[in-house]
């Protein structure tokens, strides 16, 4: 995995990977629970219709129609669940001591954006609502003056800790770049 990441980000010799972040596991668990609920709906409907309109399941036209609709419903839910897992798994953020890399996956698109730490202007880590506060996950907003105006780490674990660490790294990277610039001035 780390070798893959080193190649993926084209890691520089002095660069260290500090964070590899995905959405918190609880986000995926909540999605899975929602899908389990969606899978249970036709079963409930089957028992409800079976007791109130039993003729629906005896009729030679409505029965196959209901089976086909049920099949379509289950396949749709199953596919949406799979794509939402891919979306969860392939969206990630990498923080190194030099930059932030944001990888976002959509159904027909993949976006990879990068931000140098010394360009960061402001960082906010926040947990909103009951679940985020309870399970300590939330958003980290990275404000920059560059072309990519704002980086958003969505629903990552320990957002305030991540924001604090990125702020530290930003300060170190600024000092490093200032020293490099001073050295360059001396040589010229």
């Amino acid at each position, binding site marked *: *995995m780390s070798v*893959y*990441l080193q190649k*993926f980000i084209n890691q520089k010799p002095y660069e260290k990977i500090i964070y590899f972040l995905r959405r918190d596991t609880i986000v995926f668990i909540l999605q899975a629970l929602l899908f389990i609920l969606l899978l249970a709906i036709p079963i409930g409907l089957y028992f409800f219709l079976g007791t109130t309109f039993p003729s629906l399941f005896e009729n*030679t*036209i409505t*029965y*196959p*129609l209901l*089976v*086909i609709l*049920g*099949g*379509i419903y*289950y*396949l*749709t839910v*199953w*596919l949406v669940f*799979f*794509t939402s*897992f*891919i979306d969860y*798994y*392939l969206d990630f953020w990498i923080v190194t001591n030099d930059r932030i890399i944001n990888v976002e*996956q959509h*159904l027909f698109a*993949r976006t990879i954006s990068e931000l140098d730490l010394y360009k960061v202007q402001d960082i906010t880590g926040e947990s909103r609502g009951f679940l985020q506060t309870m399970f300590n996950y939330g958003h980290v907003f990275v404000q920059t003056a560059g072309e990519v105006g704002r980086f958003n780490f969505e629903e990552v674990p320990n957002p305030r800790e991540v924001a604090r660490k990125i702020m530290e790294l930003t300060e170190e990277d600024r000092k490093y770049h200032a020293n490099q610039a001073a050295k360059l001035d001396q040589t010229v």
Partner: protein
Amino acid sequence: MTLSIFLIAYFVFVFLFAVFSVFSIYHLARFVPPSSVAFFTTYIFLAGAAIIIFATWQELQNVDWTQAVFTLNAGL
């Protein structure tokens, strides 16, 4: 119009499902960091899809698809 129209609609849906599935699996295979998670998830997804299609097919085995759903009145 016979009952087979529903079956045709179902086949069209299964075809679309297959197209989107291939696309999703391609995404997973192409972009995921190498790990057993991708393999395991794809396996579970394909197994689940096969079970759903098989269960539907089992339930529809004894259906007479030639029976009429609507009878159009010739006098109209």
